[in-house]
């Protein structure tokens, strides 16, 4: 569905993403993990068209979209959420979701109807008439998800939708994400919470200091010494092995 | 055709007017650089200062240049109060609201002056208004020479305040990192008001330099406000050096345009520069920050 090849982005001499490639195959949940500052969000921004890469290509559903602005990619069926939530603060939750629904429903009444349905699906049923500014963190994350879903995407780019949620809130939202996948929406997600990644993703890429250092099924990747070192610092893998290296 | 001497004199006069422009723009850019607000009332506050200078000369016989000693502290106080008690609290920190509040303030000032003084233009007669300074073959207007030197001196004083005093350090800290400054115990709203006040004090000096050669009416500041914005945008919003260079540049451009195309088109020239810079180089020629 989505593949990025050799993406590179520099900010005034600093290389944020360095020749990174990944593929999100249709109908799967693919994960992108990596320590803080690894360049995950920059990679996402290039995939969604908010940043132009210095080198490399983005291919969506077989077509090269590297130079396309975000709104055209959205029309092709690519939707994203933002790590730092971006609600339309002055509008109600329903109106927020309706903006997304308008993409394929010009009529206001239809868009509102769709918004109701999607709001209920992600667990915002009782908040539909509230101002988006008044939602809790968990509510805002759900709203991000709902708005993106309302555009009827083929590919959903989720940027840390679970960050800032407590364990019970995470438990509530995992089945929602899985259900979206089951309807045939391809998902690529950036996630910090390893338990969720293990739980959801079939395939994981690991980005560290702008470079893709590993990929594979989550269990294998989490045992990869390179990955462990990237997260815990140099020599960590060796120390863990010496200590009897049990992973929980 | 114009003789080289006339052109040189006109350009030098432009340079000297530009120095006063620069001083006005300096206040504006300082306020922008620290508070990140566009102070639309800057022109109206200049008018207030010019009326102050005129009142002192008319009723107490104070020489316009000497009135700096009274007007600078007075405008400092007025600026402090305006930011601390009106602009800051009323605008809730949003860009759009600040713009509207300062617009409201400028309308109150303009029309308050109109109600109090009517729309007549006022001037100050001084012995030296038409005196000239000879510089080789060039004859330069005395008040403009004074304007150039005092404006440059004021810029130097402002720079010294920012670099060498505790207040200056606090201002620079707030400009750079508002939250951090607040965490180490700097009272941000006080620093904001002091910065705004310093910008207004610059206006007092500019007013004193202008009055011997210019007139004042309730709407005089309007003519200066877009010029000052042009300079600030040209020099890069928030850049002090940029404001100085931009001011001198605009003074010369205006003098050249007026000489070759007449006064009204000279004004258009400035607006066109303003539009072009905003459209094509919004970080300014010396782009400090966006």
């Amino acid at each position, binding site marked *: 569905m989505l593949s990025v090849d050799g993406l590179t982005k520099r900010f005034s001499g600093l290389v944020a993403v360095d020749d990174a490639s990944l593929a999100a195959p249709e109908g799967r949940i693919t994960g992108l993990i990596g320590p803080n500052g690894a360049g995950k969000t920059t990679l996402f921004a290039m995939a969604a068209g908010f940043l132009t890469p210095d080198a490399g290509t983005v291919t969506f559903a077989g077509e090269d979209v590297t130079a396309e602005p975000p709104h055209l990619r*959205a029309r092709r069926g690519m939707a994203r959420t933002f790590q730092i939530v971006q*609600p339309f603060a002055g509008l109600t939750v329903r109106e927020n979701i309706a903006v997304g629904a308008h993409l394929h429903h010009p009529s*206001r009444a239809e868009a509102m109807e769709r918004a109701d349905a999607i709001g209920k699906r992600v667990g915002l049923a009782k908040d539909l008439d509230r101002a988006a500014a008044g939602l809790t963190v968990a509510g805002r994350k759900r709203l991000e998800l709902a708005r993106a879903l309302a555009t009827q995407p083929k590919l959903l780019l989720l940027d840390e939708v679970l960050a800032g949620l407590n364990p019970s809130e995470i438990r509530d939202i995992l089945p929602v994400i899985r259900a979206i996948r089951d309807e045939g929406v391809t998902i690529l997600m950036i996630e910090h919470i390893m338990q969720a990644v293990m739980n959801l993703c079939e395939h994981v890429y690991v980005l560290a200091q702008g470079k893709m250092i590993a990929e594979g099924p989550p269990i294998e990747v989490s045992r990869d010494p390179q990955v462990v070192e990237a997260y815990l610092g140099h020599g960590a893998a060796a120390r863990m092995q010496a200590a009897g290296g049990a992973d929980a | 055709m114009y003789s080289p001497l006339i052109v040189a004199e006109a350009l030098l006069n432009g340079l000297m007017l530009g120095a006063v422009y620069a001083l006005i723009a300096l206040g504006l850019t300082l306020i922008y650089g620290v508070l990140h607000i*566009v102070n639309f009332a800057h022109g109206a506050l200049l008018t207030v200062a010019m009326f102050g200078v005129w009142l002192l000369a008319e009723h107490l016989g104070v020489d316009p240049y000497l009135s700096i000693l009274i007007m600078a502290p007075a405008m400092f106080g007025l600026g402090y109060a305006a930011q601390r008690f009106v602009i800051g609290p009323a605008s809730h920190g*949003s860009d759009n609201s600040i713009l*509207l509040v300062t617009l409201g303030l400028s309308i109150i000032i303009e*029309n308050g002056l109109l109600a109090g003084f009517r729309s007549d233009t006022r001037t100050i007669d001084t012995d030296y208004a038409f005196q000239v300074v000879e510089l080789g073959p060039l004859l330069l207007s005395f008040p403009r020479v004074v304007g150039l030197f005092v404006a440059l001196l004021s810029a130097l004083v402002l720079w010294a305040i920012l670099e060498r005093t505790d207040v200056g350090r606090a201002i620079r800290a707030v400009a750079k990192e508002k939250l951090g400054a607040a965490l180490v115990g700097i009272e941000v709203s006080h620093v904001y008001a002091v910065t705004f006040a310093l910008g207004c004090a610059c206006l007092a000096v500019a007013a004193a330099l202008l009055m011997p050669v210019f007139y004042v009416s309730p709407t005089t500041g309007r003519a200066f406000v877009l010029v000052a914005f042009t300079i600030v945008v040209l020099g890069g919003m928030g850049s002090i050096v940029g404001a100085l260079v931009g001011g001198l540049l605009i003074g010369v451009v205006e003098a050249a345009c007026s000489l070759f195309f007449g006064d009204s*088109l000279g004004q258009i020239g400035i607006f066109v520069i303003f539009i072009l810079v905003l459209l094509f180089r919004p970080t300014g020629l010396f782009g400090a920050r966006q």
Partner: protein
Amino acid sequence: MSARDLLLPLIAVLVLAGLAFSGLSGTLLNLLIFMMIISLAAQGWNILGGFGGLSSFGHAAFFGTGAYTTLILQTSLGVNAWAGLVAGVLLGAAVGAGIGFLSFRSGLKGSYFALITLAFAEVLRIASNSAPITGGAAGILLPLDYGFLNLQFDDRRWFALIAILFVGAALALTRWLERSRFGAYLIAIRENEQAAQALGVDVFRVKLGAITLSAGCTALAGVLYAQNYLFVDAHVAYGPWISIEALFAAIVGGLGTMFGPLVGAVALLGLGEITKMVSGGVPGVDLLVFGAILILTVAFVPGGLMSLRQRLTGRRRPRGETALRSEEGA
């Protein structure tokens, strides 16, 4: 949009028309006409500033273009006033589209957008003050000649009625904005441009559409102004006064609401007249009061007069309330 949505604009038109024909004195009728003209200009401002969150300080550029266009066409080409009206609105809208194209392509918003619109209006003001086509500093006078085709009426109630009908049309346009996808996108851009983009909104095109509509509406106000006073010069057409009155009426009335600009224009101009009477005609007092009201509105009632009604009846915040706050300081 359904027939029901047009009910409120229709009621407004009936009430205002009833007022115009209720035997008002000449002075009051003139005030009513002026209120209608300013409310049209303000409705134009509201489309861009209220719904789109883009505060312009230069709506005079559109107002003046409408005013000059119709008078120039009538005096030099002998075109009838209605064709002049259409041409004025179209040309005003085109000026809006041009300014919008340049500004939005460069990504200008917030203070930068306000300042560049002001600069455009000032350029037009200075140019029209010296250009021959606009009659230079003397301006343009339209000879008195009553007749429907000339949009001049011996009985001024008929002119009032036409102005009221146009106000009704502008109300209906705003109602459509509140009910359409275009309007929803425009509001979404005001609230969060990046998020709107991610949802497939073509930000540039929506903004361009908004400024074109906005400019056309304000240009119509300019046409009616010129037609009412049969005169226009550089200060009247492109002077800052109209940019400011349009902005005042829209903000005080309630940004991003259908009735805000009308309510604001009626309230402000009514108050202005009272102030002038009380102060015995001291110049500037009315504008001084307006300035103070603008600051108080921004500080305490960012939703304007329309939000007061909603506060009293305990309903949720009107959308306009966030228009002022959408452009958080950089």
